[in-house]
C-alpha cells in the first residue's frame, strides 16, 4: 500500500513518535495514508490507543527486528 507521507521516528522515545505522527497527520487530507516507523516498544500500544481515540484508522502494523511500522489513514 502506498503512503502519502513517511514519518521516521527511529531512535526517538515516547512521546516523540506520536508527537511527530500527529504533526504529519495534521498536514494530510482526509483519506490519505501516513506510514510511521518507530523503534520505541511502547509505541505499539500508544498508536493503537491514539488512532482509536482520534477516529482515524490503523490500517496495518507490523514489527520486525525491533522496528515497528504503522499505516494510518486519516479520516
Amino acid at each position, binding site marked *: 500500500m502506498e503512503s502519502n507521507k513517511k514519518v521516521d521516528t527511529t531512535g526517538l*522515545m515516547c512521546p516523540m513518535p*506520536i*508527537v511527530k505522527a500527529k504533526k504529519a497527520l495534521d498536514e494530510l487530507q482526509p483519506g490519505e495514508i501516513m506510514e510511521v516507523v518507530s523503534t520505541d516498544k511502547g509505541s505499539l500500544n500508544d498508536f493503537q490507543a491514539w488512532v482509536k*481515540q482520534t477516529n482515524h484508522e490503523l490500517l496495518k502494523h507490523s514489527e520486525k527486528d525491533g522496528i515497528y511500522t504503522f499505516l494510518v489513514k486519516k479520516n
Partner: protein
Amino acid sequence: MSAITSQLQAMTAGELTRRILNQEPLFILDVRNGSDVADWQIEGESIELVNIPYFDLLDGVDAALEQLPESSDVLVVCAKEGSSKFVAEQLIEAGRSRVYYLEGGMKAWSEHLEPVLIGQLHDGGSLYQFVRIGKGCLSYMVISQGEAAIIDAVRMTDVFMNFAAEKGAAIKHTLDTHLHADHISGGRKLAKQTGAMYWLPPKDAEEVTFDYAKLEEGNIISVGNTTIEIQPIYSPGHTIGSTSFIIDNRYLLTGDILFVESIGRPDLAGKAEDWVGDLYTTLYNRYKALSDDLIVLPAHFGKVTELGMGGAVSARLGDLFKHNPGLQITVEADFRRMVSENLPQHPNAYQEIRQTNMGKIQPDDEQQREMEIGPNRCAVHDK
C-alpha cells in the same frame, strides 16, 4: 526556556513512597493509556488520580488544567518518564507551579523498595521488611551479629547488598518461601553475588535447573552465632512446597499463604482443585495451632490500606483469625467454593515468571522488567 524548566521538578519513587506513607495529599495526573491505568496505578490513601492520555494533550493542556487543583502538588506520571515530562512542561508553561514528574515513570515505581524496621530480635539483631510499594511484594532481612539472611528477595538485589553493607552484615543465606509466580526471585542471583546459600522448598523445586539447599521442616538455619533461628513450617496451599518460617519465636513469615486482608490463591501452577484442600488445612489446622501472639509477615500486600505505621505490613495472628475474611470460613466445602469463585485475573506473564524462577529461561533485564509489570495478584480477594 530555562525559566520554564527550572520550575519543573522531578519526584523520585522514594520521595513518592514517603509522601504516601506520611499520607501527604498529592494529585496525580496519569498520562498513560486508559487500559494501562485501569490495570495498574499508584495508590495511596492521600492520593487523588485522574487519567488523561498524553496524546489527548498534544494540542494543549486545557483539558488537564480544568481538573487539576491549584492548591496541591501535582505529579504527572507515565510509563517511563518522557510523556510525563512533556505534559508537565506544558502545565508549567500554562502558568502552573508545584508540578512534578515521576522520575523513571511507572518502571521506577515498580522497582522501588522501601526498608522498614519491623523489630529488634532477642539477641540484639533486627528484622527489616522491604516494601515494594508499586507492586505489593514484601521481602525480609534478618540481621544478627554481622550476618544476614534474606527471605523472598526480589530481583533488585543491589538494594539488599547495599543495605546489608550499611549494617555491616555479610549475607549468608537467601530463602524463598515458595516458587514465586508473580515476580522474579532475586534469591538465587543474590546468593551467587554474595556467596550465600540459596534455600528453596524441594517440592517446588522439582523442575529447577540449578543447585539449591532444601528447605524442609525441622531444618534450622542460624543467622549470627546464637539465638536467631529460622524454622520452616511446611504449609502447602499456594504452591505444593510453600513453607512458612518462625523467626525469634515471634514473627511468622507466611509467604503467599496468608496476607493481612486476604489469603493466598492456590491456582498459579494450574492446580487449584488439588491445592485448595492443602490451603484449608494449612490455615485452619497448622496456623490455628500456633500462638495467637505471632506477628504475621506476608510476602505480599494486596491493597495500600494494608500498610501500617511507617509502611510496615504486619498483623497479629490472633487478630487475623478474627478479622481476615479468608479465615472466617470454617467449613471446608464452603471454603473451597469461596476460593474457587473468587480467583482474580492472573498476574502478568506468570507462567514465564515461574519458568524464569526455575532457571528454565533466562530473560535479560529489560525482559524481566516487562514480565513483572503490573500488580502482584496473589491473593484470592484482590480485584
